[in-house]
Structures are given as C-alpha cells and as structure tokens.
C-alpha cells in the first residue's frame, strides 16, 4: 500500500496553480477514456486518513459510495480537482494540503486545524448527465465549464449563442440578446430560459428538452417543428447582467416596473404562452406582496397590481392545469377584494376540476350574489350538482361491497 511519504516523493501535482497542494498516484488505471465533467453526478468509494495514519472516514463503513456533483464546490477543493482527473473505474491515492482541504478551521470533531489529508479513492460512477429540475424535463451536459458561481436570475439580460436541433436536423442558429423569461419573443422555448438560470458565464452546454420545456403542443410552424417534439440545443452563455433583486428596488421603481411586466404578461397570455406569463405576473407578486411603508396612493396602486396579478396567475394556472396553485392565487385575490367576481368564478372552476364539487358550488353561488346576471355561473352550478350526483352513485357502488370484503379478510 502506498503511503503518504511515497506520494510526497513521486506524486503528480494536479493543482492548476502547480503549488503541490494536491498530489496523486494512480493505483489502478480506469477503463474508459473520458473523465467526468463538471456537473456530473459522481460515485466514489474512499478511505481517508490523517497524517498520523488514523482513519477518519470510509465510505465502506456506510456500505454505499459517496455521491456528489462534480466541480460545484460541494466538496473540499482537493476532491473537486482530484476526482475530475479520475476516469471511470480508476483507483488512486491523493495527498491534500490543508489549503485544499479544511484549512486552519479544521472540521470538528475529526479533523484538526491545518491537517494534511490522505485518501484512497475509486471512481464508481456511471457518467451521469445532470437532470436540472429532477423531472426529466431538461438534461444538461456541459461541454465547457463557465466561470464563477454566479447565474443569471429571472429578468437578467443575457447574450447567448444558440443552435437548435430537432430529429438530428438543425432548425435554428443565432446570436441573440434577451431578458430571461422572455425568450419566447425570439422564438426560444421556455426550457432555455429555465436552464440559463443554472448556467455560468462562458459556459457551453448541450440541453435535451422534453416537450413541456420545448414548444409544447403548439409546436413551432415557423421552424417546421411538430407538436410535443423533443429538442436539443447547444447554448453558449457569452455574458449576462443580473436583474435587480427585490430588496434593491424602492417602491417607486417597483410600481413602475409592475406596469411594464403586467403588459408583458398579458401579451404572453394572449399568445397562449402561459409559463412565460406566469413568470411576468409572478414578479409583481414577489416585488409588492411584502412591501411595507407605502403611502396611501402607493398602497392603492400596489393593491391594484397585486389583484390583477393574482387573478391573471389564477387564469394561467387553470390553463396549465395546476389547480391547487390556481386556488391559492384566487384566495389571495379574494383576500384583497372579497367579492371579486373573477376571483370567485375562477376558484370555482379550479375546485370543480379538482372534484371538490360542494366548494365549487359555493363559489359559483357567491358569484351570483355579486352579479345575478352571470349566466356562466348558473350553468356551472348545475354542472356541480350533476357531478356530485355521479360521484355519489359511484361511491355507493364501491362501498357497497366493502364490509363484506373486510369481513372475509379478517376471517382468514
């Protein structure tokens, strides 16, 4: 077994700064040619010892390999550097100076201050790709790492180079500057907007978009894209400028911007781009919902924006079939204006679609109290009644045999 002394003597310096902070000796070379990439999920089995030979950690004691995302600062620097050089199946030794490990602070209770660490590690990964939102919707493979850790936030202005492929054919190639969340204005699908928020300056990556994050049901006739097509984009984030955080804006600025984004949201809504519309209206909520110290005039304006935002968000969520969120938005709208006809009606619609017939009926009845002429509400009430009856019938049929079944089971 290789000891720390051997590493110090003939280990390879793998630090970018060449300061001998991390020395490596390969015990057994790996099987594949590719090293893992930034953002990849890597699985590592390892044993760690202090300079005095005392073991402080071992993944084998836990019976499972240690998993982490490479190159993201989740682990000590020595590991981000060291594991990046390990091919799949490789086993190696690493000697890490404290500046690349736990430094002067150490890590209570096991690692003392200024400790040099010794690792034996083996790369047990499948080279996984990164699932950005853990729903299979956007998969990213980074070709070239970006700098720093900063990402564009929603509303940031980005400059990108973009190439889009569908079914192996390229349908789009351009350099474009736009605001994150408004990519639609340049025929860019929402998945790119979402992915940009996780990219770094200078990063070049490949994105695999599922239909929900692509052009969806509408497809993109302009490019000859069918409905629900899977798309592949290669994106380079050349530069970006972040949008202001809510706490950096004063009330006057927020109210001015609110007017602008409300219009944008409405425009997207009319075009059927509901995900983008949600982003715009959502800004109004995040800026104004918790704003304090408003003058009376400002308060009125703010409430008016918030009411419109909540009502419109509810409409969007109805279209997106996220009914719980639709109800939440209606609740908030009604919190500002308890007899709001639209709010009550939309909440009724959402509840109806969630099969909460009684509650839906109540809402529609309230609509009629506010505006007796609302024919749509009237017809919805009869729909509720009809559905309630259907459900009761079904329940009756199911439960009829239930007790007999239980008795049979208990007897066994």
């Amino acid at each position, binding site marked *: 077994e290789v000891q720390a002394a051997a590493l110090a003597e003939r280990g390879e310096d793998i630090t970018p700064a060449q300061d001998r902070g991390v020395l490596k000796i390969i015990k057994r070379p790996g099987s594949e040619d590719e090293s893992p990439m930034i953002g990849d999920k890597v699985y590592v089995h*390892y044993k*760690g010892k202090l300079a005095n030979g005392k073991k*402080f*950690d071992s*993944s084998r*004691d*836990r019976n499972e390999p*240690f998993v*982490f995302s490479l190159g993201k*600062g*989740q*682990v*000590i*620097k020595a*590991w981000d550097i060291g594991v990046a050089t390990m091919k799949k199946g490789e086993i190696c030794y690493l000697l890490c100076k404290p500046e690349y490990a*736990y*430094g*002067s*602070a*150490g*890590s*209570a*209770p*096991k*690692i003392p201050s200024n400790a040099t660490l010794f690792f034996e590690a083996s790369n047990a990964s499948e080279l996984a790709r990164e699932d950005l939102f*853990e729903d299979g919707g956007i998969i990213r493979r980074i070709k070239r790492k970006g700098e*720093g*850790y*900063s*990402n564009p*936030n929603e509303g940031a202005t980005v400059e990108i180079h973009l190439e889009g492929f569908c079914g192996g054919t390229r349908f789009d190639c351009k350099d474009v500057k736009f605001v994150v969340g408004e990519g639609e204005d340049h025929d860019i699908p929402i998945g790119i907007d979402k992915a940009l928020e996780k990219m770094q300056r200078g990063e070049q990556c490949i994105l695999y978009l599922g239909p929900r994050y692509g052009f969806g049901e509408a497809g993109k006739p302009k490019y000859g894209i069918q409905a629900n097509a899977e798309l592949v984009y290669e994106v380079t984030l050349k530069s970006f400028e972040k949008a202001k*955080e809510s*706490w*950096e804006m004063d009330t006057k600025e927020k109210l001015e911007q609110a007017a602008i984004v409300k219009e944008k949201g409405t425009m997207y809504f009319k075009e059927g781009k509901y995900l983008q519309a949600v982003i715009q209206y959502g800004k109004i909520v995040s800026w104004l919902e918790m704003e304090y110290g408003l003058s009376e005039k400002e308060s009125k304006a703010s409430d008016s924006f918030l009411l419109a935002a909540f009502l419109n968000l509810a409409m969007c969520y109805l279209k997106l079939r996220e009914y*719980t969120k639709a109800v939440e938005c209606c609740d908030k709208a009604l919190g500002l204006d308890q007899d709001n006809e639209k709010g009550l009606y939309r909440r009724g619609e959402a509840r109806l679609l969630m099969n909460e017939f009684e509650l839906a009926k109540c809402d529609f009845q309230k609509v009629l109290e506010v505006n007796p002429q609302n024919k749509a509400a009237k017809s919805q009430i009869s729909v509720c009644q009809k559905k309630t009856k259907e459900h009761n019938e079904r329940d009756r049929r199911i439960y009829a045999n239930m007790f007999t079944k239980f008795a049979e089971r208990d007897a066994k």
Partner: protein
Amino acid sequence: MAVDELQAIIQRCQILEEADFKGEDFNLFQVAGQKCLETGYAAQLLEVIQNEKNKVIVKNMGWNLISPLVRCIFMYKHEDDKREHCLKILDQLAQLCNPKELFLSLLEQIEQTSGEQVCQTVMLLLQPLQTVLLKLQNKKAYSVGLSLAMIMNQLTPLPVPYTKQQIQEDKFGLCQCCNAVVDFAKPFVNEIVKNTEESSEYNDMELKEELLKFCMKSLKYPLLTAQLEQIEGIEEHPFRHFATEIIDILWDIRELIPLVFLHRKSRGPQWENQDFADIERKNSADSLACLSYLMFVQHFGIDCFPVVFSPSYLLQCNMTHIEVLLKRTEESMLSKGLDLFESCLLRMEDDGLLHQYLEFRDFINVPQDLVKIMTLCPIEHLRKKSLNILQLFIDKFDTEGKYTLFRCLLKTSNHAGVEGYIIKNIKDQIHLSLTKACDNTWFTGLHLISLLDLVLLLPEGAETDLLQNSDRIMASLNLLRYLVITDCESDNRTGVWTMLAKIEQNFLKPLHVGLNMSKAHYEAEIKSKKENRREAHSSNTVCSVTVSGEKVPAMTTEMQLQVLHSALFTFDLIESVLARVEELIELKIKGVMDDN
C-alpha cells in the same frame, strides 16, 4: 366471596369448548377477577391464572383484567406483596392471552390515562406490550407503529424538563419514560437490521416506515424543546441519552444519512398529490432541523457522516434548517438555531465564503432573522449571541459579499442601532482596504461612493427624528470623520472629496437644521414643563401603559425633565462631532488651497 365467584365461573368454563364461551361468561369472569383484585385476593387470582387447566380461559378472557389490574398496581405500595402478585399476573397475561385482544386492551389503557399518570402507566405496560407485539404475525408493523404513535401522543402534552433542577426532579417522569420507550423499540429495530442483511420484504418496509415516523416525531418532541448541552453534576443526561438512541435507530434502519441529505434527493414520487408532499415537508422541517443540530453541534452520529464536504456546502445545506429554527420564538429552538449557525460558520476561514452564496434566498433571509432576534427577542443572552453571529457571518464573506450584505442590511433592518453597527463595519472595511496593499474595488472608488450614498444621509431630511436615529447618525459622522482624516484629497481613494458637495447637501446641512429645530423644540418643552409644574397637577393621562398585567405608573415631572435633558445632551454630542468634522474638512481644503 370474590374468590368463590371466580372459582365458580372457572369451573363452568373449564368444561366448555372455546367456541362456546358466551358474552355472559366473559362478563362474569371480568367481574369476579376485578373483585378479587379489589378485595385483596391477588394471590389467589394469580394461582388461578397460573393453573394449566385454565389456560384456554385465560387466553380468551384475560385481556379484560388489564384495567382493574393497573388500577390496583398503582394503589398498592411498593413493598406490598399484593403488588408483586399483580405484576406477576400482568406478566402471565402477556404470555397467555390472545395477542391481538391483549394488544388492544393495553393500548386502550394507555390512551385513557392523562397528566401525572401517563408516564407511570406507559412504563408499566411497555414490557407486556413488547411481548405481545413480538407475538403478532399479521399487521405487526402496523401495530408497532400504532403503539409508538399512541404513546408519543400521550407524552406530547407533558412539559419538557429544561433546567438542571427540573431534569433531576423529573416531575412527570418524562425523562425516564422516553428512554424506556427507545428500549422498548430495540427488538423491532434489530428485526429490521437482520432482515435487511438477508433480503428485503414488503413487511420490513412498513416496519421501517413506522420506526422512521417514531424517530421523526421524537426529534420534534421532546428533543427540539429539550436542553441538550452537557450539564455539570448530571452524569447521564436523559435527553442526550435519548438523542443518541434515536440517532442509533436511524443509523440502524439506514435512514440517517438519507434524512440529512433530504434536500438533495427528491424522496421519490411517494405522494401523487403535491399538496400532501408540501404538508409532509412542513411537518418534517422541525424534525430535520433538530437532527442537523444534533449532528453538527452535539456531534451525535457524526462518525457516520462523510468528511469530504466543503464547509461552504455544509453551511448552504444547513441554512434551511437554521432558518426554520430562527423563525421560532421559543428559547430552546432559537438557541439551537444560533448554535447550529455558529458551528457552521466556525468551520470556515475568514473571507472565504463566496459572494455568490448570497443569491440563495435563505442567505439573505437568515441575517434579517438575526436582526429581528437581536432587536426584538426578550432574552438578553440570545440577543447578544445573535449579534456575535451576525459579525461572524459578515467576517466569513469575501469583500463583494460583505459589500452586498451591508447594502442589504442597511436597507432592510429598519433599526438605528443595527444600522449604526453596520456603518461601523463599513468603516473597518474601508480601513482595511486603505491600509492593505490589495486591490479591493469594493470599499474604494465607485462602489464605495454608491454605498456611502446610503450611509451619509438623513433618511427624512431635516425632519428626521434625531433621537431615534442617534446611533446611526453618530456612526455616520464617525465614518465621515475617519474618511476626512485618513484620505488625502490628492489621493481621494475613497472618493469622499468628490462627493463632498453632495454630502453637505444631503447630510451635513439638514443635520444642522434638524439639530437646531430639535434643540429649540426640546428647550421649549422643558420650559413649559417647568412652568406647568407650579400649577395644579391634573391627571389627564391620554393613555396608560400596562406591562405584564401591571399598570406602569405615570412619569413624574422630574422624570420627564430628566428625559428631556438627556435628549438635549445627545443633540449636543452630535453637534460637537459635526462641528469637528466640518472643522477638519475646512482644514484639509484650506491646506490644499494653500499648497496650490
């Protein structure tokens, strides 16, 4: 006679087949048995139960005796023989009765107790309960889960002993009881461990889930509320012991590490309905925060934790938990939150935390929570601690991070004392960047000018309440004085000389005006108070103040005058620093003019 009645029903049932036992027989048995116990014939009852011939009867009818049995055990003194007999009867019943029925009977007994009786009853019945559960075949996991849930439900209303005295007294027996419950759970944990090594069956998933639920509940109660530091004079701290045991259980059922990393893995599509997932997440937030505290502050279970994470990442992961704890108002939870925060920060080197971390929502929320604690929390040592931790947090960030944090806190803290503290920090940073030979762009030049815009002004111009804002104003003046002294106009590294005109307009002039107005106002008040004192003292209290149920007595005129005088003193103080600053400015400008 009770014993005779008992004998009678026994004899009758001995000749019957099991299936022929009638409801009437059950009743008679119960009544007779109860009478025996209550009239002091426990020994005889024990004999009957131990008799081999009566095995079938006891098996079917024994569970009925639990309630009177428990009553009698509590009635008799410890030394009493009869109590011994009763305990033996309890043991026998556990061995002989139908497990399903006895289980329900025991559970019912626990459910019916309350208050002071709860712990006694639970501790008494844990042994028979365990015996019975181990015998169950079907639905064992469900029953174990039900028992643990029921017991914890009964314990939850009890107050958690907090001080050393309370723990030693253990008035309701909670300390003892909790540890008895983990012992009770051990055989089931062992079963899971054994089965996991062999293979995984469906049943084990259920048992594991039930034990997991129990652990999560225990983390919330009593552990989150308990005081978990080592206490001098107490060898075995019952709650520290309990915590260690819970963590051991989690480790044994292989849930410890997954729980600590909950945010990294989505816990599978367990809930179809997103709402349920949200509710579960809210409920488990407290438990998970407590778990992090146990691991990173008290180091319980940290042996199992991988030692390769970067300290910044640990902080990032723990911020959610810290936020959960710091949003509470109970001392036990706040102090845990502060300890957890402190422990994460102490693992990092100064200036090492990248400013990009401030993009995470909780990195902005948590310092604001600290500000709330240090200004509003009624407990002094917590206020002091949160101030220390805020400074620690500031120290860990790189320069851009410090800059952003200062901006954020100046805008959001709404408290003159905190603002003054931040301004002092800004001064220290400027000092560092002027004295060290590093190129620090954040506390010199354009960035600094933008920051100073927030500092060197009066929030409401000349009408600012100078008294309310005195901390902040003094800090700003001191900062300005420092800048004027240290930064030569020729150098102008801080940009203060370029901004001079603006500073005079936004800060110094309105400050003069404000001071004059305030002084005039207060002097007038003092004069009128002195005159009014001679007149009749009419009690025209416009409003009264009640604190903790007691009405605060109205201030005497003497006291009011004292307050007014001390306000004047503050104004004088501000004025004198202001004068000095202006003097220095003039000197420097004159110096430059003379040079030219």
